[in-house]
């Protein structure tokens, strides 16, 4: 069943990994005490783990190949179960209604703590959907997305500090600030090819963070800005708990609004232009699409959503400092989009919920969280580049009509 040749190969792989990880996993030196500790058990784990993983990977690949062979015979590719549900309105509408009702009653069923976590997860849903416009739909790899998030958060913190402006006044302003910055940055750099764009946005994200960290007079430096008020509701005073529930509902409303807008956008003329740009820029320009303008709109729209969530983030945590806006944050949001499935709204929602909620409930594994993120990105790209729920392009389908229908018409 499993060839001996493969076993031998796996054995070689495990020896190779044992060698590879030897200095870093096994030897642990203390330069001050001048002692060396050898952790041979780690070597055993690595060797054993890589042996098992290599066998599993091989089995997976073999199965995939066999299935690919079968598919050719069957000719018609079976649509995944999830997508069939998503395409059929009679399943989709009740399902989304059920999810919405669950989301609305969530705070009354679960504790304040759970609600708080859920709020965070939903904020990442919005961030993911925002980045999805840029990365998933328009195909512009933005690695400095967190910069716009920071702009939103800081615009609430600073406008509140200096001008005493309230949450609701700043919410659109923060978003617009971020969008404006997106245009400002996008204008020169969107002419660049994809991978350069990734680096420039990464550099831009770092610049924003470094400026926030070092320009003490402006942003109070690394210590950040504290005592940011929570959002008010027509001047009503709220207890701590109801405040959290209130923010939760704001975020739910934002999620619904975002899904609505993104969904409408994707099927619009603009959305189709984005998809076309992602596939082939030159062909797209030949069809008369203004490349720079279309990209710029995607970029600034993505930034707008990051700005909105930034304002909510500042209001939720009542404290902002530059440490919240590192590259890692950008990487997490990117993993959400990639894991969920680039361009797919449902996928991104699932991705955000999985990536943000899982570490919360697996506290013991929190140390390994970033390791897992990195691993997931690689494994997803290698084995399932479309993500959990891949996006299905809108296309016209030929429906076979029954003779009865033909007669009627």
């Amino acid at each position: 069943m499993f060839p001996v040749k493969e076993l031998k190969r796996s054995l070689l792989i495990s020896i190779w990994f044992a060698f590879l990880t030897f200095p870093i996993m096994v030897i642990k030196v203390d330069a001050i005490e001048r002692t060396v500790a050898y952790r041979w058990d780690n070597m055993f784990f690595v060797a054993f783990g890589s042996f098992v993983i290599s066998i599993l990977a091989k089995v997976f690949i073999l199965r995939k190949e066999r299935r690919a062979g079968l598919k050719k015979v069957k000719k018609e590719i079976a649509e995944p179960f999830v997508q069939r549900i998503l395409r059929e309105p009679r399943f989709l509408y009740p399902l989304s209604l059920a999810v919405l009702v669950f989301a609305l009653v969530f705070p009354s069923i679960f504790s304040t703590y759970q609600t708080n976590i859920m709020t965070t997860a939903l904020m990442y849903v919005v961030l993911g959907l925002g980045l999805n416009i840029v990365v998933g739909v328009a195909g512009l790899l933005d690695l400095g997305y967190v910069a716009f998030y920071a702009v939103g958060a800081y615009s609430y913190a600073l406008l509140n500090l200096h001008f005493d402006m309230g949450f609701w006044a700043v919410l659109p302003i923060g978003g617009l600030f971020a969008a404006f910055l997106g245009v400002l940055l996008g204008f020169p750099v969107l002419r660049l090819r994809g991978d350069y764009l990734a680096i420039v946005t990464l550099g831009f994200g770092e610049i924003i963070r470094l400026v926030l960290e070092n320009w003490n007079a402006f942003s109070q430096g690394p210590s950040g800005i504290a005592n940011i008020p929570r959002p008010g509701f027509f001047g009503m005073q709220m207890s701590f708990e109801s405040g959290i529930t209130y923010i939760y509902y704001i975020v739910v409303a934002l999620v619904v609004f975002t899904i609505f807008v993104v969904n409408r956008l994707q099927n619009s003329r603009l959305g189709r232009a984005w998809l076309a740009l992602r596939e082939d820029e030159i062909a797209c320009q030949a069809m008369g699409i203004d490349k720079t303008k279309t990209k710029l709109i995607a970029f600034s729209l993505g930034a707008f959503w990051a700005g909105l969530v930034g304002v909510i983030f500042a209001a939720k945590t009542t404290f902002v400092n530059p440490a919240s806006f590192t590259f890692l944050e950008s990487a997490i949001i990117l993993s959400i989009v990639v894991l969920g499935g680039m361009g797919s709204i449902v996928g991104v929602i699932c991705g955000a919920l999985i990536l943000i909620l899982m570490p919360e409930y697996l506290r013991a594994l929190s140390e390994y969280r970033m390791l897992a993120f990195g691993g997931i990105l690689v494994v997803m790209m290698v084995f399932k580049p479309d993500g959990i729920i891949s996006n299905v392009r809108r296309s016209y389908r030929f429906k076979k009509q029954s003779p009865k229908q033909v007669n009627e018409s």
Partner: protein
Amino acid sequence: MDYFIELFFGGLTRGSIYALIALGYTMVYGIIGLINFAHGEIYMIGAFTSFIVATVLSIYGFPLLAIVVIAGLAAAVWSSAYGFTVEKLAYRPLRKAPRLAPLISAIGMSIFLQNYVLLAQTSDFLPFPELIPEFAFMEPVAHVVGSSDLVILITTTLVMVSLTCLIKFTKIGKAMRATAQDKTMAVLVGINVDRVISATFIIGSALAAIGGLLIASHIGQINFYIGFIAGIKAFTAAVLGGIGSIPGAVLGSLVLGLTESFATGYVSSDYEDVFAFSLLVLILIFKPSGLLGKAETKKV
């Protein structure tokens, strides 16, 4: 004037370290057109390996010269092994995938390797043993140029010369240039492209490891995060010089090193990284092909 010379040599040292890392980026980009995000991490692993080996050897009482040689070799061997493995696991299966896929995979690999070192070793800054002694003959100029600056400059020059020879005159170098020009044609004339790509990763990683060893002993401390910033800066340097071009990477690194050194010396040290990134943004806006790069026109 002394201050100027000090900054100048500081910038040169910095630049030559960047060059060692930037070469790896530029070679990989030249051949498979991928920004190898994990390259900075390879450099960090090189620095860690040399740290571990050097410390172990010094505890066992080896002489300094033996420590330097063995640590350097170990760093180069293990870094190359990592570079080779990363390419095989994360990039090779994606050779024909859409453009974004290998880039995201590279980012994932970078995060993975960072956290792997963080978990297996420590998150603290580790004191790196001083591997480069203070030379007596450097005494008169020691206030502007340190001994380690001298060693770094000499080593990097030697490395660059041998790399140039390797690419110009050996068989594998020729194969590399051929692959960079046209992969399909290279296959047709009997070049094993997979092996050439592996070789590129191995050479680039070994260079990064030497850079890691040198800079770690120059600065005197390392931690798991050094690869990220160094990687970004080296990439900046590679783009500055024109990515894909080997002399360009060296020139770009020197320009970047000097810019940073003078900017931090005369303007402000808080914004060190900001200068580098701003330089990158400016270059990409005004001359996207870099100083020595050729402008690419895409044909349909």
